[in-house]
């Protein structure tokens, strides 16, 4: 038994190391003195660790502003997703109203539309209403999503209908039954939805790249990408910015790994 397990370790150790190397390089480089970077032969471990890269990052860039912007976008996205998608998911799963089937089918059909098709008209649309170059431009596309509506609908379908029927018979309105009885049961689905929305909105690059040119409205991803173009060889600085952009999600992943995996599985299973 032990001998057999040994073979799997022999495969998994090198693979896991290869996957970890970019992270190790990122952290180490962000702490390496500038004199030891870009020299030949390069060394993997710096002779001393310094926070110069971070000091320079906070001095020379608006990284705090970018981080604030990204946090704002992500918070709005997650809260809006949780509220709007659970409402819609519940409506499509449980309530009877004219147009329900057509509405849901239309929503599902939009899965087929690639986002690239929407870039130009959405840009023109946002320009007409004055959203371009504002942080709101980065938020609006993340207010609700097909994924969210579908996820919540599937979850509510799996709950026994008697739950809220009893409450409605007792004189509760649909809204009260939803907020008081149904939503508290939906925590696992809400966690999945929150993680999906956080990951997507935090990491989004393409849309902010198109919609935002004003440095005051830069998100973190946009900021570090611009920085990469401007400070090509300043690696400790660039890696420090990378750590700032990545560490929150890494920490969150390590803490909530189970929910992350559930989210990824659902993303796949829905198709």
């Amino acid at each position, binding site marked *: 038994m032990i001998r057999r397990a040994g073979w799997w370790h022999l495969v998994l150790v090198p693979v896991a190391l290869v996957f970890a190397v970019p*992270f190790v390089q990122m952290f180490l480089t962000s702490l390496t003195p500038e004199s030891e970077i870009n020299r030949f032969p390069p060394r993997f471990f710096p002779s001393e660790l310094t926070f110069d890269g971070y000091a320079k990052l906070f001095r020379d860039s608006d990284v705090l502003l970018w981080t604030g912007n990204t946090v704002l976008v992500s918070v709005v996205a997650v809260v809006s997703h949780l509220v709007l998608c659970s409402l819609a998911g519940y409506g499509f799963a449980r*309530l009877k109203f004219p147009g329900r089937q057509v509405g849901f089918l239309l929503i599902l059909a939009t899965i*087929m539309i690639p986002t690239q098709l929407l870039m*130009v008209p959405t840009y*023109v649309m946002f320009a007409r209403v004055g959203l371009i170059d504002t942080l709101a431009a980065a938020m609006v596309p993340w207010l609700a999503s097909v994924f969210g509506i579908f996820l919540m609908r599937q979850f509510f379908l799996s709950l026994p209908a008697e739950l809220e029927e009893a409450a409605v018979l007792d004189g509760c309105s649909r809204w009260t039954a939803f907020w008081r009885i149904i939503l508290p049961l939906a925590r696992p689905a809400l966690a999945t939805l929150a993680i999906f929305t956080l990951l997507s909105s935090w990491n989004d690059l*393409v849309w902010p790249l198109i919609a935002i040119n004003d440095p005051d409205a830069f998100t973190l991803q946009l900021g570090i990408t611009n920085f990469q173009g401007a400070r090509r060889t300043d690696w400790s600085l660039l*890696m420090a910015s990378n750590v700032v952009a990545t560490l929150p999600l890494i920490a969150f992943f390590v803490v909530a790994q189970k929910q992350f995996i559930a989210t990824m599985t659902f993303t796949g299973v829905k198709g």
Partner: protein
Amino acid sequence: MSPGRRVREGLTGWGFVAPATLIVLGLSIFPAVWAFLLSLQDWNGFSVPEPVGLANYQDMARDADLAAAVGHTLLYTALFVPASVLLGLGLAVALNRRIVLVGVYRTLIFLPFVVSAAATGILTTYLFNPQFGLVNNVLRVLGLPQQGWLEDPQQAMVVIALMSLWGQAAFTTVIYLAALQDIPAELGEAARVDGANRWQSFWHVTFPQLAPVTVFVAIWQAIQAIQLFDLVYTTTRGGPLKSTETVVYYLWTSAFKELEFGYASAVAYGLFAVTLAITIGVTIYSRRSTVGGLG
């Protein structure tokens, strides 16, 4: 049911679904229709749009840069899709055991999934830097020739595919892990009792059970692959010598650098048609082969 009550129920229902429905449809179907109208115009966003019929689509057929971009996209798809499916399958099989440290392996392999394209881009340019990068340094220590990587038109796309694999392996692995856990253990055991070795039992018993998942994963990854943009933007910006200019990168350049909104919309519709064709084609094919086979 009284008419009054019915109206009230209808209003309640729409009250629940209307906000999210309006946002989702308003940001997808509405602009999708608009994009089609744009694709029939010549427009730079400022001037008066000029209707040109199907001229944009006809131009696409003659556009050598677009043809080259299609080629680069196909190269990336051919590199990325089979590799990510095989890697996901292999990792899922390896991680689907109760061995010590399996949690650590899983964390390390899944972690790249949360790293953004922007951050991956910076990491890629550093790791594959021809002079000071880790990869060339390892080659040097091993006595192997140094490579140009992102600066070499022959290799740049390979590097991008490798780093995409690093970031995306978790996804295919998770899907396969879920599928493996759904396969009853008795199936494999029965085969073993009948004299199959581990390898035979995997390919003849387990793998056929995974066929629907494999089809799904392959379509999904292919659709992702033909939409590649982020990592190109954050590493090579289409270079060197346009060797990593993908269809979506080309689309983005024509729309937002050259302000050819009409032409870019036509290219986007071409991409949409291909995505749709792949999905429908593979779905029909896999339905048919399932019905004809084990059904």
